[in-house]
């Protein structure tokens, strides 16, 4: 009975694993095939002729390498800004006592439910009036703002765990509020960095709507938009699209698998603390 149940559980786990891995495998194989193989007999197997030219098309025509670097830069910068702003705000909200702190915190938490679409039009009008379109910062600033609420939520979880005695001890030692932040809180918040980073990464890396509307020159285009454009170019040729998808996906997947336990622990820390 117990054995039966156990094997049932394992079947479930294996099945779900297959549904998770299979599309990725499918993507990898068709990125190396030509249409005849994809449309013909060899739908699922490993490619018979490995067509690396698909990758060449994706990299040359599709500029995937540039878009990848752009995405990486925009995401990293947005995460950086978001973390700094969130740390500072969280410090003011949790470790300094003042009247409106609860209310201010509640306001920041509203951001969790505000849809990105809400600000696209007004933001576009303002950004263009300021001649602030087609720059990396055009995306970095909204991205860091939209990840801010989540970052504050997670930082709060971490920061309230830091014993308040430390602050008091530091005050007695003559530390001001700034001193406490830089000397005591910051070093102890290191574990929060990776957690905030992961949540922010998930929001920024995939973002499509702002990137599509705010960036019109190809120099600053990010991956999601690049893929959309490329798939418009190669609607009927699946190979190069597959190659672009792989280029967009595999570096992060590989990094994830290599660091998976650390990433997972950070993600989990966020869930518990938040």
């Amino acid at each position: 009975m117990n054995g039966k149940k156990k094997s049932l559980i394992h079947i479930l786990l294996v099945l779900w694993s297959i549904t998770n891995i299979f599309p990725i495998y499918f993507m990898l194989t068709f990125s190396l095939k030509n249409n005849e193989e994809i449309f013909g007999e060899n739908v699922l197997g490993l490619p018979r002729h490995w067509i690396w030219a698909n990758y060449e098309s994706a990299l040359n025509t599709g500029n995937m390498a540039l878009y990848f670097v752009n995405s990486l830069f925009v995401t990293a910068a947005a995460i950086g800004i978001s973390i700094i702003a969130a740390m500072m705000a969280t410090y003011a909200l949790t470790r300094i006592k003042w009247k409106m702190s609860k209310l201010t915190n509640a306001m920041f938490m509203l951001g969790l439910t505000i849809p990105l679409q809400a600000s696209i039009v007004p933001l576009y009008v303002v950004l263009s009036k300021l001649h602030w379109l087609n720059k990396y910062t055009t995306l970095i600033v909204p991205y860091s703002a939209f990840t801010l609420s989540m970052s504050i939520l997670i930082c709060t979880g971490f920061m309230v765990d830091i014993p308040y005695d430390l602050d008091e001890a530091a005050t007695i030692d003559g530390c001001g509020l700034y001193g406490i932040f830089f000397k005591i809180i910051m070093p102890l918040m290191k574990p929060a960095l990776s957690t905030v980073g992961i949540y922010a990464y998930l929001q920024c890396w995939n973002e499509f709507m702002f990137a599509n509307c705010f960036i019109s020159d190809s120099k600053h285009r990010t991956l999601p938009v690049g893929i959309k454009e490329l798939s418009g170019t190669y609607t009927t040729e699946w190979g190069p699209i597959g190659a672009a998808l792989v280029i967009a996906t595999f570096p992060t997947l590989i990094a994830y698998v290599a660091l998976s336990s650390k990433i997972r622990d950070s993600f989990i820390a966020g869930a518990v603390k938040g």
Partner: protein
Amino acid sequence: MEKKRLVSMLLAGVMTLSLVGCGDKTAPAGDSNAGASEAAPAADAAPAESADASADAGAADAASSDPITLKMWCIATESDSNRHAYEAAIEDMKKAHPEVTLDWEAFENESYKTKIKAAVSANEMPDIFFTWSCAFLGDFVNAGKVYCLDEAYEKYKGDLDEKMLANTTYDGKHYGVPLTMNIVGLFANMDILKEAGYEEIPGTYEDFIKCCDAIKAKGKIPFGCAGKETWCVTEYLESIIEKTAGAPALNDIFAGKATWNNEDVAASVDTFQKMINDGYFDPSGIGLKNDDVKANFMAGKYAFYMNGTWNCADFANNAEFFPKVKVGEFPVINADKSKLGQLIGGPSDTLAVAASSPNAARAADYTFELGKLICNYGYLDGCGLPAWKVTGDTSSVNQLTQDVAKIVQNSDQMVLFGDTAMSADSANTYLSYVGQVYGGKIDGKKFIENLAKDIQ
């Protein structure tokens, strides 16, 4: 030489045909036949040399020679049939105007619409931008965001007939430089037609339906139509409406001069739906994009494909498929109201200059010259018929495009594509109901009722 003369003769035909303008509702619409005689001399004087000379003359007085940079947005992406024409034209312009640096960027059609509108509303337009004629450009013109080209046009009058500007003329002022013009063509895979026992595209509606039945009997699908892109459905539906209700009636409806509440339109919708229900259309089409459908047609899945004549270029470039394909006109359904030669199409691809451009006057001249070159190369490539007088050797133009020119030469009246002719809001309401027609959600009666209600 013989061929060359034929082509310029055909072009003369193109120049003479009447175009129904949208912006300027009073001017060119009425003179459907009167235009023929007056335009003929202009067409006769179209040999290559003289046209070249006048272009150079235009270049010489195109303002100062200070180096400037102009920014241009268009939709000639790598996969677009017009890509080569743009590249070649821009290369030529670089040589002719080394002082102008053109910084150009191409976007995918669908996202371009989003981008250009957002840019216009934010006053963040490039100096030169691609636009569709009539309502699309009209919104920008009404908002005062487009530079008036009347002054610049004076210099290029000799090469560009004013009729070609009808779709980009608002309140009697010109705002657009037309590139190529296209109509909806009925493309046929003659291999399949022969298999079904037809040597030519049937000329009458009865024969046409019989032909479709014969094709079906051979296990082939008569038509392919991309349901995921509603404009592809309009290519069929508008032709059917035109050949039922007549071009004048359809044009009045598009122009807002007549109500949608028209029994002939309802009947056309029912005709279209009967064809769908009779299995003339590929049922997969509803889930496909146009590129897929086109690929299917070229792969021999469908006998007919109704779409813009810009496709001629792609068909001509496919050596294996090209010998099989022919182009024709959809047959007349109601001979009392319509006749052959009533077509859907007209000049729509347009370049315009932003009013906000700091170098608007020079950009205007540059746009005319560039437009002329793009038109020229585009025509040679088979991307459509030229809106400008053509220069150079045109004997290399593919047979399909020449056939289109012949159809246009014999044309009686053209009605511009509905989604271009109508304002953005109305056009999308219209497209939404056309989509519902293709999906069998509403019948002809509902179609006209809904449109009459929603579009005032």
